[in-house]
């Protein structure tokens, strides 16, 4: 991808140990920064991205040409104010926007493909911490993340408690539920059932498992929306026709929308990365990492926490956020929690929401 040629990357100078017991040698982390770093390096805010996100949080995506995924939240005068804060957003390891992942070259000069080690959320955070070390940032003013980004923020707070003063977790969870894992498995099976996937070794051939990846994205996309939101947006309205066609064309607008989402996604995302990152999320269980008790994960943490959920999010429902809040309370950590009302389901954290803006702005302040 030539568009990535100018991307900022940091070469981790040491081997990156992984939860699997393996290590990544010569790993690179691609990142973007916004706003000036203060002389005492005290104003850094790390924004962690969700499953299919990337480092382009507030700048044009080089592949799609679309605005950054959280441009409404990050920028001059915005809730995460780049006039005051030095915002860092990095592409997680395992991904495909410049950080080392299954599409990267292994030591033999060929893409890792399925030889890439299975990674975890904590491994992703190891990569982020290595980047912070490289940038000379000892302590973050705040770490912020939504969805999988929230898992990274929690993992950072639990495993590197001295690295962040504030921890903001939006629409996220401390563990993947059976339902979460089930939806991810549907996506992975769709990719692996695509003949073009070829056991993951598709990088040097003509065909890519775009059909499988598109289906994976379509299934996942449904989980990001709410029934209310889908009904309001599409109902049972037909697409470009007056009657059903008695075929398997996209008769309904919602079908056409999902197909569009699926095919657009294949332009910018690597199918193997999708496999690895969803696996990392499925393995995520912060309590299990800390002796089975979530409160233990936060014992002795001096950070301030803020947890936000949305009332229509059924992927990571409010009960999951409350679970985190109870653990933080039990650990004596300083925690705020608010459930916001929004019609759009899990995706709400990416959409305009005045109350979310005020919570984020006020907490980061």
């Amino acid at each position, binding site marked *: 991808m030539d568009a990535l040629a100018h991307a900022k990357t940091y070469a981790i100078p040491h081997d990156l140990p992984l939860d699997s017991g393996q290590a990544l040698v010569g790993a690179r982390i691609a990142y973007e920064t916004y706003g000036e770093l203060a002389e005492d390096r005290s104003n850094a805010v790390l924004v962690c991205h969700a499953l299919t996100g990337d480092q382009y949080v507030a700048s044009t995506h080089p592949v799609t040409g679309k605005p950054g995924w959280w441009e409404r939240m990050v920028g001059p005068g915005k809730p995460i104010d780049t006039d005051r804060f030095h915002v860092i957003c990095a592409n997680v390891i395992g991904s495909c926007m410049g950080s080392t992942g299954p599409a990267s070259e292994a030591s033999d000069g060929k893409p890792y493909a399925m030889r890439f080690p299975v990674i975890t959320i904590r491994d992703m955070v190891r990569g982020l911490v290595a980047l912070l070390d490289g940038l000379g940032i000892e302590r973050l003013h705040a770490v912020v993340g939504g969805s999988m980004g929230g898992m990274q923020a929690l993992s950072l707070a639990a495993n590197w408690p001295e690295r962040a003063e504030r921890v903001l977790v939006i629409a996220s969870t401390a563990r993947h539920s059976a339902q979460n894992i089930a939806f991810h498995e549907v996506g992975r099976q769709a990719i692996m059932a695509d003949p073009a996937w070829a056991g993951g070794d598709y990088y040097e051939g003509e065909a890519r498992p775009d059909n499988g990846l598109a289906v994976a994205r379509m299934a996942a996309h449904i989980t990001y929306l709410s029934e209310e939101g889908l009904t309001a947006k599409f109902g049972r309205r037909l697409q470009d026709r007056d009657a059903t066609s008695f075929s398997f064309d996209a008769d309904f607008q919602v079908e056409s929308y999902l197909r569009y989402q699926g095919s657009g996604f294949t332009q910018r995302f690597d199918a193997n990365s999708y496999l690895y990152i969803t696996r990392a999320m499925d393995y995520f269980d912060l309590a299990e990492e800390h002796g089975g008790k979530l409160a233990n994960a936060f014992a002795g943490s001096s950070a*301030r926490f*803020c947890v936000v959920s949305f009332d229509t999010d059924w992927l990571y429902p409010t009960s999951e956020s*409350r679970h985190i*809040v*109870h653990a933080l*309370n*039990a650990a004596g950590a*300083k*925690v*705020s*929690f*608010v*459930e*916001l*009302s929004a019609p759009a389901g899990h995706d709400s954290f990416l959409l305009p929401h005045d*109350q979310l803006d*005020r*919570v984020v*702005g*006020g*907490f980061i*302040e």
Partner: protein
Amino acid sequence: MSLRADLAAIAAHVREGSRVLDIGCGDGALMDHLQSEGGCDARGMELDPVLVQRCVSRGLSVVQGDANVDLADYPDKAFDYAILSQTLQTATRPDLMLDELLRVGSRAFVSFPNFAHWRTRTALMFGGRMPVTRALPVSWYETENIHHVTIDDFRDLARAKGALIERSWFFANERAISPVGANWRAEFAVFELSR
């Protein structure tokens, strides 16, 4: 910013550096005061997300939740003080709420509007309708106050629950008044309790 009279009485009697849980903390005025003036570690619980958002913006640690159920998640004696200001009368079961207060806090402060105040009595006696007064400004059909309580009722409840009334304060016209005849003279009451 000056505190409401009942909150000022509470603030004046919370020991410096205490751990405090303010239940129904509203916009966090008392918590803010206790943290900045008293060096307290203050936590809040509030039902209204807009008020929680205001608290978060002030840098306070406030959890959106319903005290009727969520207090159960807090360990015993997690706080030096549990504070319930102007919220007892909105509780599903004020008696159980009082138990919970004295479980999570070593001491509790409770403030509430006194339904036996003379203004309320006269409104009911001569008007024959549910009183709408300065202290109880909302019509019966939309009020959050589902268990109106008087000062004497509260004393009875405390006794029945084995709670000790350590101190009490009474207010009318935003000013402190003597305990004499408080049950009909006071618009608001504040009690400090222990067990």
